[in-house]
């Protein structure tokens, strides 16, 4: 299968060419963040404080990994449901975030922000957490260690597999796929 290789940080030029349904493989640094970390990030932004990482061009992966066994980089590391982050996401795209990775639908506000700020939303396979962990080459907690699995990790990934669900044209892969298959089943 043909995967489009993407290297982080991402630029608008690269992101704008992506279309729903395309398979991509990510390389480079990505950051983890889920419910509690997002709440903290938004609080920092509202207080005008510095974030633990620069958002511009970056990718946030919605994941709370399981602990690594000794000698391993990470435990299981599959995507969590993205919709829980919807409240916080438009703001992050507005500040230069380029991509989010998770699973499941996004709110209309997020889909709008992706179009407006030239971002992308990618889905990874939910529950393929052992398989995905193989593409994580290093993992380091860089913020909020007290949140346990919800801490922000800096991950270095190689050939991290994902699929484009929402693109800069406002397309939605879930809507289109489900519509197509419900019509023929």
């Amino acid at each position, binding site marked *: *299968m043909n995967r489009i290789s993407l290297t982080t940080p991402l630029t608008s030029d690269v992101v704008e060419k992506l279309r729903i349904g395309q398979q991509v493989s990510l390389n480079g640094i990505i950051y983890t963040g889920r419910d*509690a970390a997002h709440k903290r990030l938004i609080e920092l932004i509202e207080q005008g404080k510095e974030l633990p990482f620069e958002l511009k061009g970056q990718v946030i992966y919605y*994941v*709370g*990994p*399981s*602990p*690594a*066994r000794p000698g*391993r980089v990470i*435990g*299981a*590391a*599959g995507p*969590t*449901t993205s*919709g829980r982050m919807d409240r916080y996401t438009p703001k992050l795209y507005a500040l230069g975030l380029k991509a989010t990775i998770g*699973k*499941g*639908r996004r709110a209309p506000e997020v889909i709008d922000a992706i179009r407006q700020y030239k971002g992308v939303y990618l*889905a990874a*396979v*939910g*529950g*393929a*957490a*052992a*398989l995905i*962990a*193989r593409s994580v080459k290093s993992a380091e907690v860089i913020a909020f260690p007290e*949140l*346990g*699995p*919800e801490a922000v990790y800096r991950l270095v990934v190689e050939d991290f597999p994902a*699929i484009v669900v929402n693109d800069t044209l406002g397309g939605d*892969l*879930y809507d289109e*796929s*489900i*519509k*197509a*298959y*419900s*019509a*023929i*089943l």
Partner: protein
Amino acid sequence: MLEGFRKAYREEISQNGKEIIQQLIMNAEIAREERIPICQDTGFTVVFVELGQDVRIVGGDFYEAINEGVRRGYKEGYLRKSIVSHPLERKNTGDNTPAVIHTKIVPGDNLRLIVAPKGGGSENMSALKMLKPSEGVEGVKKFVVDVVKNAGPNPCPPVIVGVGIGGTFEKAAQLSKEALLRRLGEKSKYPDIARLEDELFDEINRLGIGPQGLGGKTTALAVHIEIYAAHIASLPVAVNINCHAARHKEAVL
């Protein structure tokens, strides 16, 4: 589960869907080899206890013993600690306790423990409705299909759909969770309910959601229904969704 995946792989018509199922099979193999969880969400530990009425537990607090087991199991197994102590303050307890424990007194002198860790993503897509008795079986079917349809890609399809019909508000919810404990695809012992399971299975798999919501035939791997007596005024229906990472372990002491 692997058997369920292989069957789904053969029957899936969507190319994306087939590939996802293939990845889930590979994932299970890697997880076994490397001894890491198939999914990072190793769940809220739900424990069903069947306590024989002739058993007497001595020497300590039984529920604390279960929680100690959870504490050790999640530490030694490198499982994720996913529980916050207060639903609003949301501070992680750090050891995945407390468990949710359901206890039933049964005849005999055995103590049976069924541990069924439950992931949050699919739990969040579950729902309960108090139908009017006049809505009947059609109302039940519509509600169950709507819950799965609205859940769409979120609960990591292919899913297992647990349905509880009857009882009171909380009884229906518990039945729907117990329905998930059944071996994949095992039918209800009541012929009419087994038929309803088949009808719902077919209808859900015509929704087109498919693996991960990317389109296809395999939206549900099974529909399991448990029933109970109902009040003359009520027809409660609960739908508890489980992702494809359905993990149970049983021990008899």
